[in-house]
């Protein structure tokens, strides 16, 4: 099939993706996993989806490390597959969405360099599913100062934003500016590249992205509101969301009750009602963030059912897969650290 615009093979890709989405671990699998020790989890994974990776890496690593490496490898494999399946415009959408792992990797590297972590340690946390080549990531990981990381990225789309943020970082010594710069550069590049009056497929993609931005803003706003810290919320704000602009956000963070009220009346009111109830009853933010995450996953699933032949199933799958990897890692690490079943259960987001 040629790769001209308009020849996107939505039906083929969404069939494959939905099949994979259905094959992800469900509640029962998690219930089993939670009751296992690290060794048993590894054995369980050998009999599932992760068989190839577990066998390939089994001779080199063991225990929780093996699980973690297998998870990352599997994630990268599946996301590469998506790019291989998709043609035309769909391929472009997926490629641009997967750049979020580039953003993730940059943030990980910056944090790693900031805390003087071992090269190997940083490398373990990278998810090689984005656009950056392995060689480039390796070079970035090897750098000794944040300045050289910023310099090496100067030719990428994060270049100018990072250079600006670096000045702030030099003054304050806090990473927040750099991390926000990466997030903002990522989202604005993604949304900025689309025409003003997009086609139907693009409009759908934009809608999903804006939902993601909104949820992120809500989370940041609530964290700030709860922590009571004297930080300007607009520093964390990512523009282009559907829900609010910087001024609104600043006002709302000063008054958490108003914020929940505002969310209840918003477009996501119905999707978020469960999460909001939880927020009002629970003291901790953790429950709410989990509920928020769940709502975002469910939102993508709802969109999938509404528009089966679109980008939605793919995004829903990418998010769900990411979540599964996070869940399994949380279980394995939690078991290793000796957490109780209940404590681990609290960390999981199961849809």
């Amino acid at each position, binding site marked *: 099939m040629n790769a001209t615009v308009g020849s996107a*093979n*939505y*039906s*083929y*890709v*969404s*069939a*494959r993706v939905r*099949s*994979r989405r259905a*094959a992800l671990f469900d509640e029962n699998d998690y219930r089993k996993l939670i009751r296992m020790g690290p060794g048993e989890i590894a054995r369980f994974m050998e009999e599932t989806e992760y068989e190839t990776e577990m066998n390939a890496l089994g001779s080199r690593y063991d225990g929780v490390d093996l699980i973690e490496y297998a998870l990352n490898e599997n994630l990268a494999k599946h996301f590469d597959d998506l790019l291989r*399946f998709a043609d035309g415009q769909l391929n472009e959408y997926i490629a641009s969405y997967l750049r979020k792992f580039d953003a993730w990797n940059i943030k990980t590297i910056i944090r790693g360099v900031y805390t003087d972590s071992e090269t190997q340690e940083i490398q373990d946390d990278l998810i090689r599913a984005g656009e950056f080549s392995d060689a480039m990531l390796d070079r970035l990981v090897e750098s000794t100062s944040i300045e050289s990381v910023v310099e090496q990225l100067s030719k990428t789309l994060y270049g100018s934003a990072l250079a600006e943020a670096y000045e702030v970082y030099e003054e304050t010594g806090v990473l927040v500016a750099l991390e926000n710069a990466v997030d903002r550069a990522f989202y604005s590049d993604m949304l900025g590249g689309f025409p003003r009056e997009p086609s139907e497929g693009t409009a759908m993609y934009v809608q999903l992205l804006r939902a993601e931005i909104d949820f992120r803003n809500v989370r940041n706003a609530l964290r700030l509101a709860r922590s009571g810290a004297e930080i300007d919320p607009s520093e964390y704000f990512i523009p282009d969301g559907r829900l609010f602009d910087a001024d609104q956000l600043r006002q709302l963070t000063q008054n958490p009750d108003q914020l929940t009220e505002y969310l209840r009346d918003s477009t996501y009111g119905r999707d978020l009602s469960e999460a909001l109830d939880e927020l009002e009853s629970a003291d901790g933010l953790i429950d709410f963030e989990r509920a928020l995450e769940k709502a975002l996953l469910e939102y993508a699933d709802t969109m999938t059912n509404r528009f089966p*032949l679109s980008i939605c199933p793919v995004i829903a799958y990418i998010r769900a897969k990411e979540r599964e990897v996070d869940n399994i890692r949380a279980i394995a690490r939690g078991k290793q650290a000796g957490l109780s079943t209940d404590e681990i259960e609290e960390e999981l987001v199961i849809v």
Partner: protein
Amino acid sequence: MIELQLTLAFISSIVSDVALQAQPLLENKGAAAIAFGLSAIGAGMAERSIGSAAVGAIAEDDDMFVSGLILTVIPETIVIFGLVVVFVVS
């Protein structure tokens, strides 16, 4: 879509020709042939995306082969309707 519009334009030109002339341009059999051909094109368009989705599903899970095959050939019924027209007319 453009193919469909062209076909419609073609048919409407034939029909208007037919209205003008005493001798019909298109005999019954010819009309039936066009009906059959159009129905086959319709089935092809329908099977295009069903087929690719079915291949995708089968690639993920071999058990989908039977249901994939059945779903793929369902639009063939459209061709059968076209064929029925041929028998009715002749």
